[in-house]
């Protein structure tokens, strides 16, 4: 199982705060996980998750699209940060 979190504008655009997805061959990288989410949820997710400035963190560390996933990972999609 992989836990997927969405924050801020992305959370609102997808109307989803959190979901769980089975850990499969199809979800062994961020790029593959994104494809799987789009396949499950529809084309509107492709636009939101594929936008240029989307940041991805795995287990609370920012990673690139090629990052490998393991069962039990926590993945988060969020826009550029604007705190401070």
């Amino acid at each position, binding site marked *: 199982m992989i836990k997927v*979190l969405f*924050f*801020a*504008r992305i959370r609102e655009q997808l109307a989803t705060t959190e979901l769980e997805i089975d850990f499969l061959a199809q979800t062994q990288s961020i790029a593959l996980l994104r494809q799987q989410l789009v396949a499950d949820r529809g084309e509107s997710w492709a636009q939101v998750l594929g936008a240029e*400035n989307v940041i991805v*963190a795995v287990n*609370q560390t*920012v990673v690139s699209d090629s990052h490998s996933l393991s069962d039990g990972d926590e993945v*988060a999609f*969020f*826009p*550029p*940060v*604007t*705190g*401070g």
Partner: protein
Amino acid sequence: MNHIRVQQEDFDVSAELAQMRLCSKEIGAIACFVGVVRDFNEGTAVATMELEHYPGMTENSIRLIVDEAMQRWQLLGARVIHRIGRLSPSDQIVFVATSSLHRGDAFASCEFIMDYLKTRAPFWKKELSPQGERWVDSRSDDVLAAQRWRD
């Protein structure tokens, strides 16, 4: 020695600095920064602001930023507080303080922590104005400010 908090409540700068001074009798300099909610942001009147964060990752990322500052400069302590939830104009949002023997290290590390926090700590601001809600865009100035510190 270091202290990081993410909280809804306001903070008292004097109390934080007093705590900081208690940590070491060697402290000669404390640099501190307070971020404040502005009334106007790009011309739009802001009634209130909502701050969202990523619990856990926020604290961890601030801890990494502070650790990096401690490696770069001779510091005797660092304190970071970031507020979340609903805030109004003139409210304090963020507090960063660093203490050192001399002021050069305190100033540089305090600015470094703010610059990195602005680009690395997962917080997101939404402005709630009479015209509706608006997620604040990230500023290219902030990215440039953080890049200054690269070796």
